[in-house]
């Protein structure tokens, strides 16, 4: 189903930003070439950071503020003398219920058009609240240098600047096996389910589609050959209850109570300045009232 069912011609409807788009990575067809990593760096003009994950073919140990997509390599246990490399194109999942958006105190992270989780680096203060809020370890704050761009969060934008102009994300355009597909989310889910059934028939009984319901629905979907944990993906990730409570209960209630308290003090002052004339209490002026 690789190139035969190409999605290269698909474009989002520019007049309908409420349409939810998604990327689907068919990991069974990924060859780990890392072309997507290079295309991502090139398009987004992110700094090249040379690092290595010893013992694998992985280019970087993890994502960072300047590295928005990484092909993760996982070697399976040998069966019949054969082991297999599992590869997962790791980047921001653009969750429907995103931990990073919930945690961001300045609204630098928001839910944007097409289901994309947008990041405005101008508004980012580098607090890092988003880092532990992401169950996929997909957003990071650059703490290496002090400056305009440093100390800011960085993550995959789903190439919003490209898709809003009728183009495909850079990684999708460059993928030589067409294993990264971009299109309407519902259509991709239907395609993914069909592909899973096909893989099962081909002798991969554990094949599954990841991202349909996780975090309210991801905009990064995966056709996996093995269970999610084999790819380092969290099983049933969820939004932290403490974080939800912090943003949607504590903050509004706290602000409302502070406002009400301030109002109460103004009322008190209006009454007290009549009672305590000249700063003297009724006991001092001989006008004490007893209940």
């Amino acid at each position, binding site marked *: 189903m690789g190139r035969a069912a190409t999605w290269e011609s698909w474009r989002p409807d520019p007049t309908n930003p409420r349409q939810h788009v998604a990327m689907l990575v068919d990991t069974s067809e990924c060859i780990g070439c890392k072309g997507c990593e290079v295309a991502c760096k090139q398009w987004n003009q992110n700094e090249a950071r040379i690092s290595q994950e010893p013992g694998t073919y992985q280019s970087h140990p993890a994502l960072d503020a300047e590295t928005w997509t990484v092909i993760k390599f996982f070697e399976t246990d040998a069966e019949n003398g054969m082991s297999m490399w599992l590869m997962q194109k790791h980047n921001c999942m653009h969750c429907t219920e995103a931990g990073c958006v919930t945690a961001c105190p300045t609204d630098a992270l928001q839910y944007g058009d097409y289901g994309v989780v947008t990041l405005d680096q101008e*508004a980012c203060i580098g607090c890092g609240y988003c880092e532990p809020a992401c*169950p996929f370890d997909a957003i990071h704050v650059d703490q290496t240098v002090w400056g305009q761009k440093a100390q800011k969060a960085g993550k995959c934008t789903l190439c919003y600047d490209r898709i809003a102009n009728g183009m495909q994300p850079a990684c999708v355009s460059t993928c030589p096996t067409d294993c990264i597909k971009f299109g309407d989310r519902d259509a991709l889910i239907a395609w993914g389910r069909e592909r899973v059934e096909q893989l099962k028939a081909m002798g991969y009984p554990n094949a599954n589609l990841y991202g349909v319901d996780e975090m309210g629905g991801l905009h990064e979907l995966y056709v996996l050959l093995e269970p999610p944990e084999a790819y380092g993906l969290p099983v049933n990730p969820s939004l932290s209850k403490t974080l939800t409570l912090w943003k949607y209960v504590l903050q509004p209630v706290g602000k409302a109570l502070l406002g009400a308290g301030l109002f109460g003090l103004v009322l008190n002052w209006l009454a007290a300045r009549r009672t305590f004339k000249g700063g003297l209490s009724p006991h001092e002026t001989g006008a004490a009232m007893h209940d």
Partner: protein
Amino acid sequence: MARARGSIKKFSRAQVLFHWFYGSAWIVLALTGLTFMWRGDPTGPAVGLGPLLQGSVGQTLRLVHRIAAVGLMASPLVWLLGDPKSVWPDLKELFAFGRNDLKYMLIAPLYYTTGRGQLPPQGKFNGGHKVNFYVVFITFFTFAGSGLVMWFGRGSVSDAAFHTAQFVHSLSFFLGSGLFLLHVYLTAVHPFTRRSLSAMVNGWMELQYARLDHAEWVEREIRRGTAQIRDGGPAAEAR
């Protein structure tokens, strides 16, 4: 009845210094912490305080926040080293919350609004001071503990621990801010209780006010012969 002259020593120089050291750090922390409450619209043009609270300026404010945090955590040393003899007796009194303190807390809101009611005699610290101290005491540790987790623990503590620290830090802020507003109002704005402010400026309190608001303490000090009373108001002593 006019105000009589005469003042009584309430706080030592070290205690006054500690109060303002802690208070200044707290105010800087609260103001710089407001960056975390700003919820502007990043898609629109930044207006008002927006430009000050975001981007690289926001980062600078975070640095100031951390410097002030170190100041706040170190501030108790001013009292502990500057006037160690007063630490235990004052803490002992602050942590003793009796029936009179409870009665004070129940009557004070009405009394300080309408003048109605009779406040029970209070010690060096009245019920309100004690409640304020409890909040300051507790939030000192919750602020410091959660702040240190968020400052140094990111990436090394569990996500759940980080979120809990984030929650505790914000909760401490709302608790502390409520008490802070009340504290500033009563000591600097309220027409009657602002007469107590001099005690935290030069250590001396108007004796007539002290007899009304801290009767038990004044009588005790006089009985023991430890009261430092001077003729002239607190302002005169400041000179």
